[in-house]
């Protein structure tokens, strides 16, 4: 069953069309890496899925209906989410907002049940050691785990993560991807994850959704991250190199890659 279906979809952001003619389906329980250069419209895709933007053309459905803002089945980790050092809120209170933060009033009952849900999610992301510390004092990796726990307490069926790995060192990237991979398999959550480097994700992902040059392409990593496919997207020669560790590197046309609309 497909969680997300896009047909002839076009995205417009700040009065310009960022990409168009997108056709793809995301099946339930799959893990998709969303790749592409800066400014290609990866976050714009998330805004469409969250119902915060409407499609410029074509059709988009999430769970079989047009996306609407505040869908509780969608978990979201925004881009460059981090907290200032003097941000004085306990990790536990932050995670708990994922359960009932959108409801009006001061919470009165349900404390014990909510506490279990929070403890459960915190355990899954292995953050029990520091969940009672102020979130501003935690490292980037620790904050990222609590952001994941915050998304998980809402019992999402679709998880949208906008560059959760940037600003993390390689060791932390591996650890976070491992946690994500484990959770989504266990809970059958469908994941779209925006990243710059596909390599830490390769052992876990089913598909790659490549967004570049106003176009999109979806498929298995081995089908999409090839010289032929990427050259077709960019309408220019692109090389894909694979090293002895199985890591892939995309090269060629660096200027167009970093300034796709220049």
């Amino acid at each position, binding site marked *: 069953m497909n969680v997300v279906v896009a047909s002839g979809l076009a995205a417009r952001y700040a009065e310009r069309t960022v990409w168009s003619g997108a056709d793809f389906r995301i099946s339930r329980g799959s893990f998709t890496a969303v790749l592409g250069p800066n400014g290609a419209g990866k976050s714009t895709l998330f805004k469409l899925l969250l119902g915060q933007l409407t499609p410029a053309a074509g059709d988009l459905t999430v769970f079989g209906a047009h996306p609407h803002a505040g869908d509780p089945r969608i978990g979201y980790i925004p881009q460059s989410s981090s907290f200032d050092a003097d941000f004085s809120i306990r990790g536990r209170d932050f995670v708990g907002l994922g359960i009932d933060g959108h409801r009006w009033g001061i919470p009165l009952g349900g404390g014990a049940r909510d506490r279990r849900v929070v403890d459960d999610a915190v355990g899954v992301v292995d953050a029990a050691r520091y969940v009672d*510390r102020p979130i501003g004092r935690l490292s980037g990796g620790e904050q990222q785990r609590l952001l994941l726990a915050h998304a998980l307490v809402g019992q999402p069926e679709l998880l949208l993560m906008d560059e959760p790995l940037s600003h993390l060192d390689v060791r932390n990237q591996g650890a976070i991807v491992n946690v994500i991979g484990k959770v989504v398999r266990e809970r059958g959550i469908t994941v779209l994850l925006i990243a710059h480097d596909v390599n830490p994700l390769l052992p876990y992902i089913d598909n790659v959704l490549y967004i570049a040059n106003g176009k999109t392409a979806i498929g298995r990593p081995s089908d999409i991250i090839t010289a032929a496919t990427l050259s077709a997207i960019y309408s220019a020669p692109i090389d894909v190199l694979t090293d002895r560790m199985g890591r892939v590197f995309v090269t060629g046309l660096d200027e167009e890659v970093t300034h796709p609309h220049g």
Partner: protein
Amino acid sequence: MGDVLLVVTDTTPRLTWNLIADVAAIFQYQFMDNAYMAGTVVAIVAGAIGYFVVLRGSAFAAHALSHIGFAGATGAVVLAINPIFGLLAFTMGSGMVIGALGSRLRSRDVTIGIVLAWTLGLGVLFISLYTGYAQEAYALLFGEILGISVQEVLITAVVAGLALVALVVMYRPLLYASVDQDLALAKGVPTVALSVAFMAVLALAVTDAVQVVGVLLIFALIVTPAAIAIRFTTRPRFAIATAVGLSLAFTWLGLAIAYYSPHPVSFFITSLAFGTYVAVRVVEVLHTRVSRTTSADA
């Protein structure tokens, strides 16, 4: 403010060593009863909203609201209306505009500052138009809680009640949006409407607090207690309770000290707030030094 009560005492009351008698002496005058009632109400609402002001980084907006309110209050004096209504109209109007601008706007503080300077200028014009006495302007700028009437205490209480009810209703989504606007928005929290509503509630609180400390000293009751509170606890509800407690302590103590001294109440309230903040920061620095030297892995 409003109908001016000029309290002239030929001798400043003397402190005895009997604490109960000293406290009882404070409440033998109606004007001190009024001051304590208004001060209590204001301290509660100021402390509570102050937590969100600090959390949202809206300290400058709070400061600006009070200054913009000054033009409204002096304008009301010129029109022979109770200044609290002019204050309310201007803080409400400007608060909602600031709220609609949103925190994402990088130049927001610059825009607020430009409007603030102009409205202060307007206030100066209104004062010059009103040829009465400078006492009104002085009371608005620095607070004149000892001259507050029973009717004004009632208005203050109604305004504070409205603000507190609104805060209780908005509590969770406001906390969510203050922690991370993008997360709250994705969960369906109407963040822009909430930002406007918050600034409207802040306008109510500022209007109330001006009665006690005046437009220039508003920070002492709204920002300082909350800024101290978040250094003690990371739990939102404890932090709000702590901020309210501190705000009450500063106001009550400030009034009591002022009763036994020839100096203004506002000076004592602001000094208590400032002194406590400095003390907390100093203790913090000493504490981190000690824990650094005692534990190597901290």
